[in-house]
């Protein structure tokens, strides 16, 4: 036991020295304002004392090593499960690794190292830790961050769901590129009428990928099963959200093709609005095109499964 304490103490000393100068796995400290950096440094240092095990364990990740990830059926590296199990202090250990004190890379390949980078952001995001908000924001705003990291940061911001995160994600919808795509992932987790209203115009996008992402986001916004949990959002917003989602998705259904149409059908299934089938009947009655009628009949059959 004494030996273990000594090892931990040694590690802490070395890690403390590293905080001030080293870069993290994803970011460097100088990407933060001084106030943010100091706050994070202080809290990390405090957590190291309070929860030393988490800081030791995080340096022993194995999920990116072939001997471990080859046991997964996907055969792909992932450290998320390990990070979830870090225990008390996990969030601060992850912030430390992301921002201040990079983990030992060893012989990790690019793909394996990406798994570590992204895994840290994902696992930290799952903790819904408000202190981590600046970390996610920096990654989200970092033009050099990969698409996957931006997406993971956006999801983490969505999980936090504060006004600042909402505003940032909604602002990103106005631009194109990885930030908008990431925001569409992140906004799945923040169910609110203004957000639905911000997503709906993207269903008209020329890009099929954007339409698919927008439809998916609306499906999660309006998910009847999620709303049934009582934990999806403000209950007063449930029906306004689901109604908006239904109307918007039905409006573009016939204009969409291929993957976008499939995504819209999926989203309508999730929204499961009680008026959907009646609306489709009305659309069938109002269309003179046989092809459209057939497509609507198929949609109706699909939603009745």
């Amino acid at each position, binding site marked *: 036991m004494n030996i273990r304490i000594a090892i931990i103490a040694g590690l802490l000393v070395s890690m403390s020295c590293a905080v001030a100068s080293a870069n993290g796995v994803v970011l460097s400290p100088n990407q933060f304002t001084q106030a943010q950096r100091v706050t994070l440094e202080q809290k990390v240092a405090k957590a190291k004392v309070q929860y030393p*095990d988490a800081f030791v*364990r995080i340096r*022993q990740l*194995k*999920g990116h090593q*072939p*001997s*471990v990830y*080859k*046991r*997964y*059926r*996907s*055969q*792909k590296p*992932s450290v*998320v*499960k*390990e990070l*979830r*199990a870090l*225990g008390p202090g996990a969030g601060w250990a992850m912030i430390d690794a992301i921002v201040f004190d990079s983990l030992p890379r060893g012989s990790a390949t690019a793909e394996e190292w990406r*798994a570590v980078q*992204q*895994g840290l952001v*994902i696992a930290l995001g*799952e903790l819904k830790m408000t202190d981590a908000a600046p970390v996610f924001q920096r990654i989200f705003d970092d033009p050099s961050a990969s698409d996957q990291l931006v997406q*993971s940061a956006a*999801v983490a911001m969505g999980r936090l769901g504060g006004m600042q995160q909402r505003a940032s994600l909604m602002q990103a919808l106005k631009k194109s590129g990885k930030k908008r795509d990431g925001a569409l992932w992140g906004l*799945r*987790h923040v169910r609110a009428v203004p957000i639905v209203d911000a997503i709906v115009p993207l269903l008209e996008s020329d890009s099929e990928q954007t339409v698919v992402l927008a439809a*998916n986001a609306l*499906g*999660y916004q309006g*998910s*009847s*099963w*999620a*709303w*049934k*949990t*009582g*934990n*999806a959002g403000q209950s007063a917003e449930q029906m306004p959200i689901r109604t908006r989602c239904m109307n918007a998705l039905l409006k573009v259904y016939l204009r969409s093709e291929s*993957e976008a149409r*499939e995504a819209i*059908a*999926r*989203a309508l*299934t*999730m929204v*499961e609005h009680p008026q959907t089938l009646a609306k489709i009947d009305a659309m069938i009655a109002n269309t003179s095109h046989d092809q459209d009628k057939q497509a609507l009949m*198929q949609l109706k*059959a*699909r939603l009745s*499964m």
Partner: protein
Amino acid sequence: MNLRTSLQPIRVATLMVVAGACCWTVGCGGPDGFEGTPDGDVQDVDGAQDVKTDTSWHVDAGKDASTVDGGADARTDSVPDDVQGDVPDDVQGDVPDAESDADPDVVLDAESDAVPDQQVPTSVGLLVVDSNRNGKLEPTNAEEMKNKATWNKDFGAVFLVNIDDDDGDGSVDHSDEVLNGAEDVKDLARFEVVAASGDVPKTYTGKLSVDAASASKVRIFRVKGAEFVSQKDPQNIVLTSQDLAEGVQFAIEGRSFVMSKKEGEWAGYVDLTHVVTAGGKEIAHDVARMRVAPLVFMNNLMKTEKVWAAGYDKWFINDMRAGLQAASVPLDVLFYVGYKEPDQWTQDHFEMGYVSMPAEGGAHTIKVAMRTPTPIREAADIVFREFLGPDFGAIHVRSAKYNEWMSTYDSMGNWDTVPPHTANGVSYSHGRFIVGSTKSTYPDPVAIGFVEAQAIQPIIKVDTSWLSVGHVDEFSSFVKASTPRGWRMLFARPALAVQMLQQLQDDGYGAVKMHVGKKWYGDDPWEVWAADISIDEVLADADIMATNQADQATLNGILAKLTTELALDESEITFMPFLEYEDPYYGGSVAYQPGTVNLLHVDGHLLIADPFGPKVGGVDVFKKDLDDRLGSLGLSNHYVDDWDTYHAWMGEVHCGSNTLRVVSEKDAAWWEDGR
């Protein structure tokens, strides 16, 4: 009238093979023995054209009709008149008038051109192949002779890729030029140049050849008693007058499957041509056609010979053994001794199939394990290291430049076979191949092109991109049923799981936990955390609920497609309830409760992941549901604790096992399919 039969045009694809298109390693002796894999892209070669081919035998012994009618040769007489000029069923294109279309240059008047003072044989150089598919060469059988240049569902000779290893040298038998022991004889199809019906002038010589496209795809042996002599050049096999007089038997082995349906690729048909000449002039000319047997994949309805599973988890193995004992099926436990990086996903390492051809007393079959295309999967090399042997072959097909990002779609759990059926007026006598593939997530194109090229089991592609692992066995399975179709589809349905949990909650059991005593874990003890969770907790998790609803919506789309494709009605589908969760790193779903649809079907017995569902009154509600749901269909359930080694690592029972099936005569007779 002379003996000459009509020249009939056949539309034959000119086959050109572009080297370096892919790596396919039926010729390799294992992972270190891959045949050449030169880098290069597959190129399309447009080579289809009409060529004229004499599709029947002929001997021009004179232009006088009396030569035939009055001939004393029994063999010639045995061929009925209607043989001549008949058009094989598979001949495409216009059939011209025999006389006007005949090429006078290949019609020789034996009386005027043959060496004088010698008796001219009334038949010489005839070819015979097993066109009537009874395993025998019957030159006196009119039907056999009439159809020898034909290939359709009723007639046509077959040969095998000699892909097993009868001499135990670790290499497939077609990779060398010798007969590989007595057992190897059975793997070679025969054909014959029939002994002439009369004396053969010494000036006569025969030249036997295969078409240019087939030359590198087959090996021809000349059979002399027990001796099999490989012929160096299958496009130039010379027969002496003595050979022509006595007849010569040949054996043929395939060195390649049909690799692709692309134009210009070899289509698997070998056109044999035998030309007899004398003094530079053609005396006789005969042709015959053979087809290489495709690789046919086994399906769940076939009787089970044995099951393989990796020996990593004694609880898993014990449960598997118990279930298989009830089904009277042996379990072969794989230990991967000497492997540096083995893994437990036996299903993903290979897909079982077979090749077969007619033989006396019943079809001759070689079972074939198709190794997963991904080159980096040591455990999959077991098919070469340990399985390859007599009547057991192995093959590895992949692109030369393999895309590792797509490797999970090449795990063989993503490759399955829908059992035989008829749908929308079309018969699929050997079923259909089903694979998870989309525009952006797909198996190796060369490997899937190979499967497509086998032709017997057309491919159905479904979306598995929404899954973290991405395999069709995560949501579908096919099991025996006492229905006209003979099978039913099991299909994942998260909605049913939610409904069951909500019912329990409504009945006051919301606090009851599921997954009791089970743990999620990483690689070290400190990573372990309890998996037990109450019904209330699950139903209150908006993320889990939204994920499952999204998955259900996706599954509805796949179900709609399969219902149409397979012409299934509701009574032929059984839903399997379990929840999923989102793997955040890969953004796809994976089974949260044990994925019970990912099961092993052996002869009406189901080996299913123990669901570890919530217990009410000591009864696992999910297990009871499965017993009621599947038991009422005449299926016997056997539960397997796969949690620690498979479920926690994103797979279930099917993923952890593989199955060798018995190939019945009906299964073997792929040639009756008509594709």
